[in-house]
């Protein structure tokens, strides 16, 4: 670069960095949905733990309070507020929402914007999640869950998800827990959520559930707290990466008079810190929601997800070890053999943009596969060099629990 042209170079650099037409709209849309609105009061119930735990500087104080509370629960709450009370509270709470025919929930989760619905990471920022459900005139329950780069609808017959605006996954299913969103749909079905809590309150041998009143900014709230262990060991790869694999405590907030559920939080215990990872910031019961809200607009140029079919030479792929499958997958990328690439993927076609990223790579290393207690597939460590020189070092997630029994890439790239 010739130094005398610095102004021109700066202008060219600015052009290259560019701007995006919808950028301001995208930011303003996220801001609109942000639970934090500077300059004006939201009028939402003000939950003290939310305020405390949002500030890292006082997290340890909050953690200490929780630990003390947990210790106290063993000695005082079991007698002063026994789980009989938890059962009574939950029974009343279930009655309070029994006439719910539609619901709109706003929440936030520490996760990646571009991930599905279940990944968590206490170190990440919050991502907004919005959920709707209604009992339609035809008797079917329709649900919709939105988060950045994901829109999902389910109606008891099919589930449709749009990823990054143009990658479509559609399956015929009567289930409401597709694409790792089952824990969210349990929240939407608030009646079932509370019934499930009631079931646990009725059998709580380890005293993991407590009920107490909390004075929060002058507002008296009824709080139900439940501790839950992680389903994987402390040194597991998936520890604290998903709800079930995290050691966590749930807090449900009820109106003490009506017993209506008005808020919920989940705190993950990471060993040194207690971090607020999920929070329901607003629940609206029985809002009017148009049926059309549960139908997604699918772009005409969309790429579709498809289940692996049984190939003429299916056995060759079904007999591979995870390491062999990873090697074959990356070799297909290196040789830009897209027909072969698709045998390890669930996409209907390979996007041209992605071909430029992953095509012609150089395989630096492929390591020994390993498993996690919380995942049915395998992880294969790898290191590759892209054409643009970028080194990608990660764990390729592979699974073969499909009808063709072939290994398909499930993540990690």
């Amino acid at each position: 670069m010739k130094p005398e042209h610095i102004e021109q170079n700066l202008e060219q650099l600015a052009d290259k960095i560019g701007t995006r037409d919808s950028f301001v709209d995208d930011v303003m849309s996220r801001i609109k949905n942000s639970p934090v609105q500077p300059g004006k009061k939201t009028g939402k119930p003000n939950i003290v733990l939310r305020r405390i735990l949002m500030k890292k500087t006082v997290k340890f104080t909050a953690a200490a309070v929780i630990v003390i509370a947990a210790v106290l629960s063993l000695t005082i709450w079991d007698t002063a507020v026994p789980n009989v009370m938890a059962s009574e509270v939950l029974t009343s709470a279930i009655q309070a929402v029994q006439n719910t025919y539609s619901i709109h929930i706003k929440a936030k989760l520490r996760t990646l914007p571009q991930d599905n619905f279940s990944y968590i990471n206490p170190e990440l920022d919050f991502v907004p999640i919005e959920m709707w459900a209604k009992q339609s005139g035809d008797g079917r329950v329709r649900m919709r869950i939105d988060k950045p780069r994901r829109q999902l609808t389910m109606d008891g017959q099919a589930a449709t998800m749009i990823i990054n605006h143009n990658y479509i996954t559609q399956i015929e299913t009567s289930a409401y827990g597709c694409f790792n969103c089952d824990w969210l749909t349990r929240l939407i079905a608030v009646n079932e959520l509370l019934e499930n809590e009631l079931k646990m309150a009725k059998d709580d041998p380890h005293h993991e559930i407590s009920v107490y009143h909390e004075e929060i900014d002058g507002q008296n709230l009824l709080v139900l707290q439940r501790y839950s262990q992680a389903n994987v060991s402390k040194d597991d790869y998936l520890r604290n990466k998903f709800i079930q694999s995290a050691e966590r405590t749930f807090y449900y907030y009820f109106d003490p008079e009506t017993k209506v559920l008005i808020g919920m939080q989940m705190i993950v215990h990471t060993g040194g810190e207690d971090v607020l990872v999920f929070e329901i910031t607003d629940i609206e019961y029985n809002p009017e929601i148009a049926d059309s809200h549960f139908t997604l607009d699918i772009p005409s140029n969309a790429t579709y997800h498809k289940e692996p079919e049984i190939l003429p030479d299916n056995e060759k792929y079904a007999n591979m070890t995870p390491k062999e499958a990873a090697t074959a997958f990356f070799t297909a990328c290196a040789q830009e053999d897209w027909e072969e690439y698709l045998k390890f993927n669930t996409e209907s076609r390979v996007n041209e943009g992605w071909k430029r990223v992953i095509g012609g790579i150089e395989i630096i290393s492929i390591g020994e596969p390993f498993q996690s207690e919380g995942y049915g597939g395998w992880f294969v460590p790898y290191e590759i060099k892209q054409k643009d020189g970028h080194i990608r070092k990660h764990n390729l997630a592979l699974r073969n629990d499909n009808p063709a029994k072939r290994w398909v890439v499930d993540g990690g790239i």
Partner: protein
Amino acid sequence: MTQSDAQLVQETLDGDRQAFALLVRRYERSVRAVAMSIVKSSHTADDIAQDAFVRAWEQLPTLRNPKVFGPWLMKITRRSAIDSLRRQQSLTYSDGLDQMAAHERNGQLDEKQQHLLETIDRLPKAERQVIMLRYFGPHSVRDVANIVGRSVGTVTKQLSRAHKRLKNRPQESEQ
């Protein structure tokens, strides 16, 4: 006359979202630039830029001196970008799709441009701010002066010093 950052910050705090939209428009490219100087990928930089503005919105009441909105925003962006680099070690399920979208939308910077960007990022704070506003806004010198609340003369001197530093920076091969 172009409104200063301090005025727009105050209007935002008074509840005017459009004032914040003007700040987003004003700083979009600068925020992108800071992000790209760290993460190299234009698509990831887009995410970081959005996150930085949302964080700035949420933390705006904590900004004690609205005049320093620009440098404060860059600091948030830098922190977000560094966090993002750290996150790349985390398990993700659709980076591929994201990169695919990125390559369809934007080209990457060449080495010389990346180097220039990194050098801008190392300029003294005041000079970096005026360079970014002047070229990445882009704004006239008078508008830059209004935005940062300094005189035209001061801004001109700061731009001149920044140009000199950028011209005299070590070339890529020397690093």
